[in-house]
């Protein structure tokens, strides 16, 4: 019979009672029909929880399909009705020793999913039996069930010896059982933060033996667990790699990447160069195969991983350059990534091919991509000495095309080439100068001016060229201004006779007529140098500059090794370590375990503040008036004088980053402005720490910020951000207050603020999540009497059921960490009512949490009733 009809039905009145009746029907097939109807209703979201006992009634059956359906229902509803779930325990226990292994496994699998404490107690005995079951299907199910139990009660698992049983399963004859045991152990290790699975020779052999036989997913578990080990012994490493290598030819790309990860992490320890070479050879083709998938998203993930691998071991793909050739219809993000990898693979032997590709790319339509292609040519010139001639020739060809952004990008790149190969390519300066008028981007202008200054003695009309810029000196961006000052000084030192007026003029403008402290500083330094000791000035300004080297390797060695251990994960796509974008599982878990065990709830945990201890020097609130406006340049760490004088080094602000931030506005959406944000509480106030990075060509300034109305009424204070130069970064901290006018209904989660950030290039929108534990004010304590009188004056309007992890003591500790303060406790056996206070801005929130005697409830009261839904949402999260 088709099951579709169960979905029709509509919600007639009396439907439930009709179902109820059917569930008790004498004939089993009728009961099965009825249960199917219930499941269908459950799937589409109808409330069928009132039928719990009736459905449970059908569990005693020999019909396996019916049994599975009932179990499905029970899993979904046990959480809401724990006291009723107990009723199913008998059947679970009985089924767990059924003759049919499918039933045994089903029972043990389901029991683990019923997250009700009192059911857990009954789980131990059947689980122990099932772990030793004669049927591997039951054993593999039981293995995972240990992980489920650990999540519910770590203590039970450890005291009842399940860990030992699990470790025994590693020697199981069935590979799938081994794989699941590995998965369970790995999860338990993550939660507990300690090492349970040791890499001993025997364990290793067991895992490697199972690896060949188990399912593809089991292979992924085992490979991932292998990659966490390490060995210093070359022979061991070699034999592990040897035995993992066949997995590279698996049809499932998840297995392939997991195998690559294992090999990459052991390969460093192999001393035999031949063996290393062999492994590299084996890894290449499967990696390329990953790229042949149809979906560009998957290609992108593969490319990002390949990017890491190539940085670590370029030889793996040294001969696969052609695979990365750009197709016209590749999406832009795939093209960019391919370009990046081609630069890394570029070598003397293939440079001709690569340059042709770059030239092709530079004639495409997408401006960003074209610029990147031009930059790629420059990077190759700097990377491969022998290719520099060819690269310069190609760049000249591109300049002849007279496409404005190609010309400008080329000039920027040529400036770098001049830095690397001084006095080799002056012949092209004439061509460059022809394009002087068309330059309108600050970086290109600055580059051109640098070239003119650097080679002033060979450019006859250098003075005229520079002079043409001086008329509009004040309209130029600071990058160009700085460069002009330097170039004119260079010119003066080289041709003092006819440029005296010019240098006077420019130094005047730089020191007297500008507000920019950078420019003033540079002007004064030159001025004093020139006036006190022209010889010294010559030595400083015209001194030999250190050669720049290629920057193909973007990630430093140590970081790269760490990232290679993350191959295939999200970290390998972001190229960031996991702890920069995810919560540290271990720490949170450890906290949780600790709190759960803590009997004395009053011993409060240190307040959970991210980086709250380290004052941020840009925390304008605490530094206050002492650093007005110019704080950014003033705080800049002094660096090498040469670097300071020469614009080629981008200014670094050298600020430590105490708050973990996440990128909320990527540069491609922010018109070149990248914003990272993270929240923290400091000095009794919520702060939003922002890192603004300018990846655009022009300086960014005139910042202003605005919040959308939000459920907690968060409002920004004055945003103070100095102008941000191209390729530099500014950190700032925005104090956040709560204001009733800002209150608005939740767009999504209550703790999400939608933010508009304006700068001189436009308005940009992003959103920031304020962790719930940071929302409440430190000043949330009120006296007991005040609290009680207010509490009594308001009716019980907002009562909700919640899920609470832990008892009243541990909850107190947990909430204290989030600035929810314990006020009083009242016991009406078996229930316990605990009262808390908290403040959102000035608004007092009061809540009563009940424990024991059924599901916990929260009863929230506040005069600012509009805050209650958001407050409740915060509690839901905090209490779990």
């Amino acid at each position: 019979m088709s099951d579709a009809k169960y979905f029709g039905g509509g919600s007639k009145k009396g439907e439930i009672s009709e179902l109820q009746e059917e569930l008790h029907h004498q004939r089993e097939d009728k009961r099965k029909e009825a249960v199917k109807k219930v499941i269908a209703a459950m799937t589409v979201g109808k409330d069928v929880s009132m039928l719990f006992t009736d459905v449970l009634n059908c569990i005693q059956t020999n019909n396996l399909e019916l049994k599975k359906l009932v179990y499905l229902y029970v899993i979904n509803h046990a959480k809401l009705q724990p006291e009723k779930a107990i009723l199913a325990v008998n059947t679970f226990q009985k089924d767990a020793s059924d003759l049919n292994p499918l039933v045994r496994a089903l029972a043990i699998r389901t029991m683990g999913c019923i997250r009700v404490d009192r059911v857990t107690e009954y789980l131990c005995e059947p689980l122990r039996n099932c772990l030793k079951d004669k049927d591997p299907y039951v054993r593999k199910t039981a293995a995972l069930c240990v992980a489920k139990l650990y999540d519910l009660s770590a203590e039970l698992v450890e005291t009842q010896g399940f860990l030992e049983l699990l470790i025994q399963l590693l020697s199981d004859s069935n590979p799938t059982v081994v794989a699941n045991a590995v998965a369970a152990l790995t999860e338990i290790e993550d939660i507990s933060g300690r090492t349970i699975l040791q890499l001993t020779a025997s364990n290793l052999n067991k895992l490697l033996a199972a690896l060949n036989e188990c399912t593809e997913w089991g292979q992924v578990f085992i490979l991932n667990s292998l990659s966490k080990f390490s060995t210093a012994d070359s022979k061991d490493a070699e034999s592990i790699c040897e035995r993992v290598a066949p997995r590279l030819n698996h049809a499932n790309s998840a297995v392939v990447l997991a195998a690559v990860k294992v090999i990459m992490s052991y390969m460093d320890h192999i001393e035999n160069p031949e063996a290393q070479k062999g492994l590299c050879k084996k890894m290449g083709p499967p990696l390329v195969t990953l790229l042949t998938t149809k979906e560009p998203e998957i290609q992108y993930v593969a490319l990002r991983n390949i990017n890491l691998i190539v940085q670590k071991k370029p030889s793996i793909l040294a001969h696969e350059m052609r695979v990365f050739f750009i197709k016209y219809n590749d999406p832009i993000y795939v093209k960019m990534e391919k370009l990046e990898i081609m630069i890394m693979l570029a070598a003397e032997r293939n440079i001709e091919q690569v340059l042709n590709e770059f030239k092709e790319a530079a004639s495409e339509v997408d401006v960003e991509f074209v610029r990147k292609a031009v930059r790629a040519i420059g990077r190759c010139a700097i990377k491969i000495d022998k290719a520099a001639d060819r690269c310069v020739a190609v760049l000249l060809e591109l300049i002849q095309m007279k496409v404005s952004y190609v010309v400008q990008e080329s000039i920027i790149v040529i400036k770098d080439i001049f830095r690397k190969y001084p006095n080799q390519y002056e012949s092209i300066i004439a061509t460059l100068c022809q394009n002087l008028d068309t330059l309108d981007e600050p970086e290109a202008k600055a580059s051109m001016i640098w070239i003119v200054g650097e080679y002033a003695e060979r450019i006859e009309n250098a003075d005229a060229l520079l002079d043409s810029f001086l008329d509009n000196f004040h309209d130029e961006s600071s990058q160009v201004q700085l460069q002009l000052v330097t170039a004119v000084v260079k010119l003066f030192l080289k041709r003092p006779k006819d440029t005296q007026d010019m240098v006077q003029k420019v130094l005047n403008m730089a020191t007297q007529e500008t507000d920019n402290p950078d420019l003033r500083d540079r002007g004064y330094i030159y001025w004093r140098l020139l006036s006190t000791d022209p010889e010294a000035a010559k030595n400083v300004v015209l001194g030999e500059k250190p050669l720049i080297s290629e920057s193909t390797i973007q990630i430093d060695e140590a970081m790269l090794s760490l990232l290679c251990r993350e191959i295939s994960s999200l970290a390998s796509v972001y190229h960031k370590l996991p702890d920069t974008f995810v919560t540290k599982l271990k720490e949170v878990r450890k906290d949780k375990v600790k709190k759960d065990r803590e009997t004395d709830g009053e011993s409060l945990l240190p307040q959970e503040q991210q980086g709250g201890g380290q004052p941020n020097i840009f925390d304008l609130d605490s530094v206050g008036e002492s650093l007005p406006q110019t704080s950014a340049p003033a705080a800049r760490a002094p660096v090498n004088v040469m670097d300071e004088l020469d614009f080629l080094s981008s200014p670094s602000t050298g600020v430590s980053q105490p708050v973990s931030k996440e990128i909320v506005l990527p540069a491609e959406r922010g018109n070149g402005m990248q914003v990272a944000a993270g929240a923290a509480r400091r000095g009794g106030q919520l702060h939003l720490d922002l890192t603004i990075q300018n990846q655009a060509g022009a300086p960014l300034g005139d910042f202003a910020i605005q919040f959308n109305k939000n459920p907690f009424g968060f409002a920004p204070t004055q945003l103070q951000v100095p102008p941000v130069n191209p390729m530099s970064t500014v950190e700032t901290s925005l104090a956040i207050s709560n204001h009733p006018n800002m209150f608005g209904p939740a767009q999504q989660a209550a703790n999400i603020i939608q933010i508009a950030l304006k700068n001189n290039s436009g308005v940009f929108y992003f959103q920031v999540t304020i962790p719930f534990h940071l929302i409440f004010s430190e000043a949330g304590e009120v006296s007991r009497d005040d609290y009680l009188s207010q509490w009594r004056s308001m009716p019980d309007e907002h009562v909700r059921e919640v899920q609470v992890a832990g008892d009243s003591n541990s909850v107190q500790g947990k909430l204290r960490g989030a600035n929810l303060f314990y006020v009083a406790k009242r016991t009406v056996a078996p229930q316990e009512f605990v009262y808390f206070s908290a403040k959102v801005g000035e608004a007092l929130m009061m809540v009563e949490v009940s424990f024991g005697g059924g599901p916990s409830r929260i009863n929230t009261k506040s005069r600012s009733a509009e805050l209650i839904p958001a407050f409740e949402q915060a509690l839901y999260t905090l209490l779990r």
Partner: protein
Amino acid sequence: MGPNFLCTGGMFSQLFLLNQRGDVILFKDYRGDVPSNIDTAEVFFSEINRRIKGAAFHYVYVLKEGIYTVLLWTQIAEEERMTPFSSIQLINKLLLLLENFCGTLSEENLRKNFSMAYQILDETIDYGYPQTTETNSLMDVILDKNAHPPSSDLKSSGLLSALTAWGSNSESHSVPTHSATSASQGQESYTSLFKSFVGSYTGGLYNATNTTEEGSIYVDIVEKINVILRADGEPFHSSVTGSIEVKNKMRAEEKNRDMVVILRPIPTVAHKKIVPLATDSKTLLMDDVIFHRCALIPSVNSRPLKEELPLDFKPPAGPFTLLHYRASQSVEGDRPVAVPFIIKNEITVMSENRVDISIKIECLLPTDKQAHSVKIQVPVPKSHHINSVSCQTMDREGTTLGTVQYSQETNQVTWNFPKFYGGMKQHLRIKCFTSVGQSKNIRSQIVGSVSVHFEIPMWTSTGLRIKSLNTIHGHNEPTRWIRYITQSDSYQARLG
């Protein structure tokens, strides 16, 4: 993202399938760590539609046949074990399983067989850990063999549509070696036939009652070719990804038989240290080969290479990929990939107001072969630069089969051939007239590359053929259908 108390071990918490209105078709919670008052499907759907990312959950999803299949995490944990790759792989495999057991993927079929679908979700994944995604191993543990609709219900089922699809093409099926030629109506009919054969396995395992299908095994060699040509027609990158797709429709009593297939030329892989026979015409040098689990690989790896490469395999029921391979023009210059088309193009600025684009295409196939549905797309300058475009085909034999169309929206000229015979040469001249004086820079207005789309039946670019296909102890051989097809994946010629 700040600390979050909703923390789990990193495997996903929930899996659900939604239709395009956001209604739940199937929903399974694996870890019980999502607060029960949150309707995650709803949250997901609104986030998808408003294209914003909420903070609470993380998803990986695939939208296929109008169905969203979503994996949901409450937290990306530090030890993230479900990687982007595995997640998508898992979803795809799951959908294949649902299709195998419940019939063509559709909301209707899933609802019809939801009891079975839930069993599949229960068996394939436990606590967020994938267990097995292989049809054969699930057959033992999944019940409800009556799930398929009774014959009276057939009209609406996937089975019937499958049968009609087969029926309508039955002629081409009975003479499989001629199927290519009988599909003379061009791409439409061939593609649909091809799809019903390789792409989707419509019946559902338990529904395979039709006798014409039973007792057969279908083998297709499918190659997708990937070429970049220079303007002068010289290919400078060519590669092929190919696969041997098998659909096993053998009768139950034959189902566990071992089969042996002999391939010619013999695929070898350079890095696998096989006796180097690369120059020998009997071997085919591949970049990478991946065998299905059921194949007994030693024939490639350790057995001494003989005249033939017998590949033993034990075909599981249903469709599977026996061999996935990749070949490309190698550095050394030998070319295991035959290029079916050469395209030369030339752009000439003729005068103040005229640019000509000349396209010459030559088919290198043997004369008894032909490409179907050949579509050549040529970029022309953007329409606001252009006054008119005139196209002229200049065929040497004086006859031309192609039709030419200029589209202002896409700035493209499309040149279509229902068929393109081996050895045929065609020439197209496109004259673009612009306002006077514009032509100087007009070259840079022509962006992109010439791309060609086609399908070539009964021909493989690598020349890989199936020499024989037998059961190992063979009497009562199943009916065997063997076909070859090469499709353009990305076939581009750079502009001159």
